[in-house]
């Protein structure tokens, strides 16, 4: 995992040297003289060897949380990122909850009666959900709930501290957009995880010895399917974070994804680096947490 994080930091760092035109030129604009660009590069430390620049950059992040300063506003990026983290986190979490709210019941319904009409409609809907572009889903929800019905705001973010309803009414549409899509993907995995367990001998045995159906489902099936389901949820975080990036942009949600896109469009590279690095770190940590959760769910798994 540390190796992956190291690799990610190298890739992220490499963005700036790989770019056409140095950050100094971006800061000064196209009319700057070569001398003033060179002078600013020296002041920004861009004339030093890449290895030294890398150590300096990553050292600043790890020891002081210093991501550098924005080329556009001149403000420290660390603070900007910190301000945006809660917005991205809350959106990802509510979206995940939304997705599970779809995937668990739908997966159960179709796995218990494979081949039935209900199973078929669930798989048709989930195929559609997987194929919908996330930004289009956002547009459709805005069209219906904001433009036509006028029930919910179409953009913006309110922190939880300003009250539950302001927060919830703003988060509902973006979270639903991401949730419907990741829920569709998860439904298919929940279904196959359950089918797998339902076919096991111990489930048949439990049925045969007269254990009530709900108890079999609760104690034997759900518990044993939980591992695969947790894995799916962990793996879903990649798709989820990707969709969150897109949805943040559509709903003017002040999170990391929006930061990444505006940074790209304005050529504010330190900000882009910060957004990319943090997203990758979050994803890697979620993966680790997924692995560790197995020890709780399955006593047979131990990590030494």
């Amino acid at each position, binding site marked *: 995992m540390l190796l*992956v994080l190291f690799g*990610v930091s190298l*890739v992220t760092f490499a963005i700036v040297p790989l770019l056409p035109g140095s950050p100094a030129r971006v800061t000064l604009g196209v009319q700057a003289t070569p001398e003033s660009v060179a002078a600013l590069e020296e002041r920004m430390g861009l004339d030093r060897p890449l290895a030294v620049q890398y150590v300096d950059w990553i050292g600043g992040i790890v020891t002081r949380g210093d991501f550098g300063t924005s080329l556009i506003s001149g403000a420290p990026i660390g603070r900007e990122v910190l301000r945006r983290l809660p917005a991205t986190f809350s959106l990802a979490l509510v979206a995940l909850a939304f997705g599970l709210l779809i995937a668990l019941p739908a997966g159960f319904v179709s796995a218990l009666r494979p081949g039935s009409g209900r199973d078929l409609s669930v798989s048709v809907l989930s195929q559609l959900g997987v194929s919908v*572009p996330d*930004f289009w889903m956002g547009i459709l929800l805005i*069209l219906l709930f904001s433009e036509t019905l006028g029930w919910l705001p179409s953009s913006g973010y309110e922190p939880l501290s300003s009250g539950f309803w302001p927060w919830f009414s703003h988060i509902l549409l973006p979270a639903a957009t991401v949730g419907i899509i990741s829920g569709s993907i998860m439904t298919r995995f929940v279904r196959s995880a359950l089918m797998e367990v339902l076919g096991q001998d111990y489930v048949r045995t439990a049925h045969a010895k007269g254990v009530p159906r709900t108890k079999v489902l609760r104690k034997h099936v759900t518990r044993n399917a939980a591992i695969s389901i947790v894995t799916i949820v962990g793996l879903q975080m990649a798709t989820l974070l990707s969709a969150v990036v897109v949805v943040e942009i559509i709903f003017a949600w002040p999170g990391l994804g929006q930061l990444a896109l505006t940074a790209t469009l304005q050529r504010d590279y330190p900000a882009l680096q910060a957004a990319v690095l943090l997203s990758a770190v979050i*994803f890697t940590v979620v993966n680790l947490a997924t692995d560790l959760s197995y020890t709780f769910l399955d006593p047979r798994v131990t990590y030494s």
Partner: protein
Amino acid sequence: MSQAAARGPGFWRKALRHGLVIAGGSIVLLLGLAALLGNVIAPYDPNAMDFTARFSPPTLAHIFGTDEFGRDLFSRILDGASVRVKVAFIAVGISAVAGVTLGLVAGYSGGWVDEVVMRVMDVFFALPAVLLAIVVMAILGRGIENAMIAIAIVYAPIFARVTRGAVIAVRDREFVNAARALGQGRLRIMFAHVLPNALGPIIVQTSLSLAFAILAEAALSFFGLGTQPPDPSWGRMLSEGRAYLSQAPWMGIFPGLAIMVSVLGFNLLGDGLRDVLDPRYRGRS
């Protein structure tokens, strides 16, 4: 053997009877037709402006309605199909060649080569796909060629992973050992014996990746990073339509529908092919 079935006559018979393959294949075929003949069947010139028919709702004359310049949306969507298909196939082509080669070398060689290649792939997996694509676009600059490269880079690691898994499953089989015993060269064994028998999962992944590629190109164009005007990109049509949602909702509906149906086609085809090529998956996804 499932992989070998990819080449036998039994494959086509089974595939052509499979519901998902038929449904997905038909959509893909329609998309292909739209891409080839879009300009011929389009009722209007896709770029012709008609200020007397601005924001026309869907009518018999304009079945998908018109945009803020009075351009016919149906013609524009048809006209956009060829570039969408071209971008998807080129991007996935690059991605597959790079990913399959890496996966083949890693899976067949094993040892440190495998370790190094797959750890590098892990790094790319740790970045959310859209973010990675945005980063590549930031480095390369906007435009359609760069969008293809970005999409190729994002999805190559998946090809590498899929290929590696399939290669490991066949690399120690008898026919590979026999080729080795006959003294054939490494490259020849890898490409002539191992790869053809690992094709099943790669074919499936190709179809699913075409779906991703159409989505990704639409997303990049939606953000203004992909194709530039006057190409009627479905993603950009959506982002233009956003400004007129309350006035002309059809501008926000039909381009998205075109994207979804195309993606659905490749997804269904991919799932169906997986059923046909790998019986273990039947009825599970």
